[in-house]
Structures are given as C-alpha cells and as structure tokens.
C-alpha cells in the first residue's frame, strides 16, 4: 500500500522532466532505494504499470537498484555487507560496538527518453 504514493510522486517528477526535455516517450526510469527502505519491487512495478497507462511513461521500464547496507566496526574499521545476517560482535576484533549502516530513502536517478 505505501508504494502507491511513492509511485505517484515518481510519475509526477518524471513527467515534468520529460516535458522539460521535449520527450515524446519515456523508455526507462531508474530509481535507487536504500537498504532499509520500505519499498517492495513487485508492488512498485504493479502500481507503476497501472498508473502510467495513457501517459508518456506507458510501457516504460522501471529499473530499481537497491543499495546495500553494511556492518561497520568503529574500533577496527572492518566493513561487511549486510544480507540480513545478525552480527553482534565484530568478526575481526570482537568489538561489541559494531553498527549497521545504510540509507532508508528513495532517489530518482535518471530516465531514458526518446
């Protein structure tokens, strides 16, 4: 459900940019989501297809790139990609100060137009 207002914003931002750039058609839109964002690609795509019907964006491809989160140890500097694993101590130095880092937002990166 929360994907719907985000899709509305993506469409309105993209339509403005497409018009500014004299596009006849938008071929693809690329967005980047943070590691801790709440957007589900399957629902984004579903809403996107439905809501772009009859617009410049109809049949365009929504490309979703998800950033990775990572564990960071402030004591020894070790970084490790986060893929849902639960770590409470740094695997290198054993520090309990280890932190999980990453973004939670969403960015409209670029679009391909014709």
């Amino acid at each position, binding site marked *: 459900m929360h994907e719907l207002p985000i899709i509305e914003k993506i469409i309105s*931002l993209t339509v403005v940019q497409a018009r500014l750039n004299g596009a006849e058609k938008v071929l693809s839109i690329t967005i980047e989501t943070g590691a801790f964002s709440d957007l589900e690609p399957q629902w984004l795509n579903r809403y996107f297809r439905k809501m772009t019907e009859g617009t410049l964006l109809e049949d365009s491809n929504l490309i979703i790139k998800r950033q990775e989160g990572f564990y960071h140890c402030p004591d020894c500097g070790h970084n490790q990609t986060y893929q849902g694993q639960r770590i409470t101590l740094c695997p290198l130095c054993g520090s309990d100060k280890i932190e999980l880092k990453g973004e939670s937002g969403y960015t409209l990166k670029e679009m391909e137009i014709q």
Partner: protein
Amino acid sequence: MSTRVIKIEQDILNDDKELAEKIRIRERENNRLMINVMASPGAGKTSLILALLERFKSSYTLSVLEGDVDSTVDSDKIETAGYRAVQIQTGGFCHLNPPMIEKGLALMERQENRELVFIENIGNLICPASHDLGETVKIVILSVPEGDDKPWKYPGIFRVADLVVLNKIDYPDYKDFKLKEFSDQLQILNPGVSLFPVSCKSEQGLEELVQKLESLVDPFFD
C-alpha cells in the same frame, strides 16, 4: 529515433521533506513542538500518550493529532480525558505525511503557552519510519508480548527513533523477554539510542521517560 539519458538525482520524497522542515521551523518559532509516536497496533501508543499528558499538564499546553485509517476511537479517549484532540483519518493510507499534519495543525488554534503536540501515527512498524512529519522527537514503542526480536525484523523504524519505549513490563511473561539482547540490537541499529522499559498500567518507569523527554524538548522552547 535517437534516445537520450537524462540525469535527475532527486530525492523522491523531497517535497514532503521540505514541508516537514518548514513545519518544524515554523512551529518551534510558535513555541509549539511535536512528538511523533510510532508502534504496531496494540503496543500502547494511546496509553503512553495519555500517561504523558497527565505528567506534562502542569508544564505545557497539550494537544494530540490522532492518525487512524478510520474511526474516532482514539481521539474520543483523549477528549474524554480532557485534552484537545484532532482526528486525522487517512482513508486507507498506512502512514501520516506532512500535508496531513498541516491540515491537522490548522484545526488547532495556537495557545499562549509552550505547547506539546503528540502525533499518534498509524499502527505499523514499516512505513511511518520513512516519513518525517516536522516533529522534534520520534518515539518508537515496542510492547513485551511482541517479542524481543523486532529490531532485526523491522530495522528501519528502530533506526530513526530518538528514543525507544518498551511497554507492558508488567506482562506476566516479561521474564522471557531478553532485555539485554533487545538493547544490544538497538545499539547496533541506532548507536546511542535510549531505551525506557515502562508499564503504562502500573506506571513503572514513566518518571525517567518524562525527564528524558523534557530534556529533549525544553532547549527548543523560549
């Protein structure tokens, strides 16, 4: 026909974020601060707000913005307790956003004193995390029966909390709740965040929470 790639690099929530910042600055100038209370349904958002209203009533003017998908159940409870409440019905939306807060604030006449507005967000641990409402403090509540593993399952919301309240510590199975593990998870996700174990029912732990909240809001008042 030739194709071109147009670089945009724009935050998709930029307009909401700008409005949230505008609200925060304007309301601080008005001596009115907002506290955004987020939790799953049944964790004790309304109970905690009622307990805090009671403890803050001699120091501040108090109001509540009640967010719900439907009904006026919660705003009725607040008004019955003698406080001003504005119900925001989102009509299916799963979180509040800054335009809804603007509408709610417009319905609340500005008072003379230092004013605290509690925002009761929609009950869920997912999307409220992504939406800045112009508040000064974000509280996330978890209740004991929900289990100690929730920060791992819902990292987004625990990462944005300014303070975390563990409610219902009077619950009979509290002994099974691994408080140390819960606290360790919070520190990994949100280093330095404060945790307050409380019971809104028995009133245990509420004084410490009240002191912490005062220390967070008072620097912004005239």
